């Protein structure tokens, strides 16, 4: 069935989701050594709450939140703190973290903390409980969820959007969570709805995942009035701005937040985790990750302890000898990896492995021929052609002032369609980094 996309632009890459969408979530074993960074989120790093040599229960605090824009880190396993030292992370930056050796014989039972009762808790208590559970956006941004829920003065949530539009190719994490944890999703929605006093709650999915939305609705008592919107499968439908556009017919102003148009977006896996953890007062110890791609043998959806090294994960699922490239997230926005000795953190929803067959055909860029396909493909109505031209001439200020560089969220549609194979997204990222450096030198406020 053909349906009009809910926004202009965008692309329809092959989804490659068939390989893992029927695979139930499987529990992953513990690696011999877990690397738990104290900063897995946007904001300030957690402060260590344990010392080297300490023995911890599973779910115990390893790090406490440092200020409002920070979250605690919980032990993914019962074990011994081997070291507290710098460790490599996916971004390439070394951060402080806890090297934790799980006890081989432990039952790995999670003791409950202070439960947050849905019926009696106040909105503020729910938000505090979410902060205490170490919840961050599990869709990839890893922004502390409680900070998003503390609304600016005078703002009201007209629509709470639960984002199940998993538009990146290959990934089926949110889909499996909705199917298998529909009760958690519904409970999470009720917590969130109460926390922000939202007028309405809607679950948004792409057409390919409509069964998952059905599962959630079946699990929800009808008096809750949870709405479902099935949107066409069209990349990047899951982007917050485009979702808001599709559901509210409103556009977030440049530099503004969804709440400026009365919307609040929370990723569905985050909602499920809230519904799963809050009744027991627990913190995040693991997350669901899709491991797939032509370079992976036993592709599937796995519940993996936080801190599991990627190398251990890949060895567990098995890889093709011709493995050539691994990136975190989907193939459109996924971060390339230079090392496998980095841990899985809260923001990682999947990783994809390519073999030589997928990477060898890359072409060197030709000059831009002004075909305008990038302009048509940009879902935000930017002009990637002009932006790229300016980037190649070093005109980064002009890119921001006249061509809205700050609006670009690097979805990759422009580079995907470019017949000249110009690495447009890379050029934009470099320009943004250059502007950030210039701003920090002059003390400009980046947000203006």
């Amino acid at each position, binding site marked *: 069935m053909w349906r009009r996309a809910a926004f202009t632009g965008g*692309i329809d*890459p092959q989804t490659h989701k068939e390989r893992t969408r029927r695979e139930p979530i499987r529990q992953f074993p513990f690696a011999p050594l877990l690397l738990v960074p104290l900063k897995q989120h946007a904001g300030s790093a957690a402060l260590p709450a344990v010392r080297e040599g300490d023995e911890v229960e599973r779910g115990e605090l390893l790090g406490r939140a440092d200020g409002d824009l920070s979250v605690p880190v919980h032990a993914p396993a019962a074990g011994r703190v081997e070291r507290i030292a710098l460790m490599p992370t996916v971004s390439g930056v070394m951060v402080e973290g806890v090297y934790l050796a799980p006890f081989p014989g432990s039952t790995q039972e999670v003791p409950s903390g202070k439960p947050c009762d849905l019926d009696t808790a106040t909105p503020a208590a729910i938000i505090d409980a979410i902060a205490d559970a170490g919840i961050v956006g599990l869709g990839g941004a890893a922004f502390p969820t409680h900070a998003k829920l503390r609304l600016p003065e005078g703002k009201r949530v007209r629509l709470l959007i639960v984002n199940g539009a998993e538009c990146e190719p290959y990934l089926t994490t949110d889909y499996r969570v909705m199917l298998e944890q529909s009760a958690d999703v519904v409970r999470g929605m009720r917590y969130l709805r109460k926390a922000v006093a939202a007028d309405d709650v809607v679950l948004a999915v792409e057409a390919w995942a409509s069964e998952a939305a059905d599962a959630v609705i079946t699990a929800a008592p009808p008096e809750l009035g949870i709405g479902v919107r099935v949107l066409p499968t069209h990349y990047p439908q899951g982007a917050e701005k485009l979702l808001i*556009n599709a559901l509210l017919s*409103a*556009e*977030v*102003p440049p530099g*503004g937040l969804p709440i*400026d*148009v009365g919307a609040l977006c929370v990723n569905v896996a985050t909602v499920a985790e809230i519904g799963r953890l809050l009744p027991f007062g627990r913190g995040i110890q693991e997350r669901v990750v899709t491991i797939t791609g032509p370079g992976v043998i036993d592709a599937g959806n796995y519940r993996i302890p936080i801190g599991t090294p990627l190398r251990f994960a890949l*060895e567990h699922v098995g*890889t093709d*000898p011709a*493995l*050539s*490239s691994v*990136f975190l*997230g989907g*193939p*459109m*926005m*996924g971060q*390339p*990896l*230079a*090392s*496998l000795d980095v841990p899985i953190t809260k923001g990682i929803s999947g990783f*994809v*492995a*390519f073999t030589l067959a*997928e990477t060898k055909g*890359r072409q060197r860029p*030709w*000059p*831009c*021929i*002004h*075909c*305008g*396909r990038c*302009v048509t493909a*940009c879902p*935000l*109505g*930017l*002009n990637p*052609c*002009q932006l790229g031209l300016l980037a190649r001439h070093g005109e980064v200020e002009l890119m921001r002032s006249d061509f*809205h560089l700050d*609006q670009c969220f690097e979805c*990759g549609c422009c*580079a*995907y*369609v470019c*017949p*000249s*194979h110009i*690495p447009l*997204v*890379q050029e934009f990222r470099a320009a943004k980094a250059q502007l950030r450096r210039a701003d920090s030198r002059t003390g400009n406020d980046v947000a203006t």
Partner: protein
Amino acid sequence: MTGRAPIDIHPAPHVHGGDSVPRIMLHVVIALLPVCAFAIYLFGLAALATLTVATIACLLTERVFARDEHSTLGDGSALVTGLIYGLTLPPALPLWMVALGGVVGIGIGKVLFGGLGGNAFNPALVGRVFLQAAFPAAMTGYWLAPLGSDRFVSLPGTTTALPLLAPEGAAVDALTSATPLGDWKFAGAETPLLDLAFGMTAGSTGETSALLLMLGGLYMVAMRVADWRIPAALLGSVALASAALHGLDPERHPDVMFALCSGGLMLGAWFMATDPVASPLTPAGAWLYGLCIGLLVVLIRAFSGQPEGVMYAILLGNAIAPHIDRWLQPTPYGAGSGQS
């Protein structure tokens, strides 16, 4: 995999839609092949020689002047320029002129501007406009009658003329008088529509068959290598403006079908105005650009001393394309939200 980190570190996106510049150029060449074949059928060896020399001149110029660590011939753009340039020339043009125009078109029209993607004007038309200025008599007079009886036996005398020497009078006498547009403008004679549509007329090597050109153009649109809006706007505005003029003065101005099927309009509208490098970026820009070129075509044909104006109209369109791009930027998300 143990012990060895992944080798390939590539920034996102990690997948690509699969299209490429050479593939685009290949589709243009495929679209041009029937037009070339028909030109050779119609004008014989003269067309074959013109197309061959035009293409070789363009390829050689690109090879010699375009200095790049990778071969710039590989992108296919010089081949496309060569073919299109050859198709715009009178079939009996001396071959040395053909070669010279090709060198100018690629050398000055393209390489000087920075090669592929840098040219402000369509290189094929730069070559042609140079010849038009340098050799006006040859460019407006060296036509061949279609389906000449000895077209596969010998080349016209003008074709083999030596550089800078006037061809012998006898050679020139063998040429036909004029094209349908010339007939109309200077003699008031109308060519039958069927001959125009199928291309059984005198004219530039590849401009005569309106139907084949349209077929090639539609193929490019179907393969998404040409923006359909440009020929739509261009041909639409020519049709409307011609209808208006014809309505005012049917004696002086030809009817719509004649206007659409004669001269270089179809070749220009489908194959030259659509050159992405020298045309606007946005869909709105494409409409405006096509409209401007169409109106210029009618204006030049109706009110200038020349029977044909497609070449100048497209070059003028190329000149205003960057300005159109500046006026018609896409509207960014959130622009209408009233806050900033």
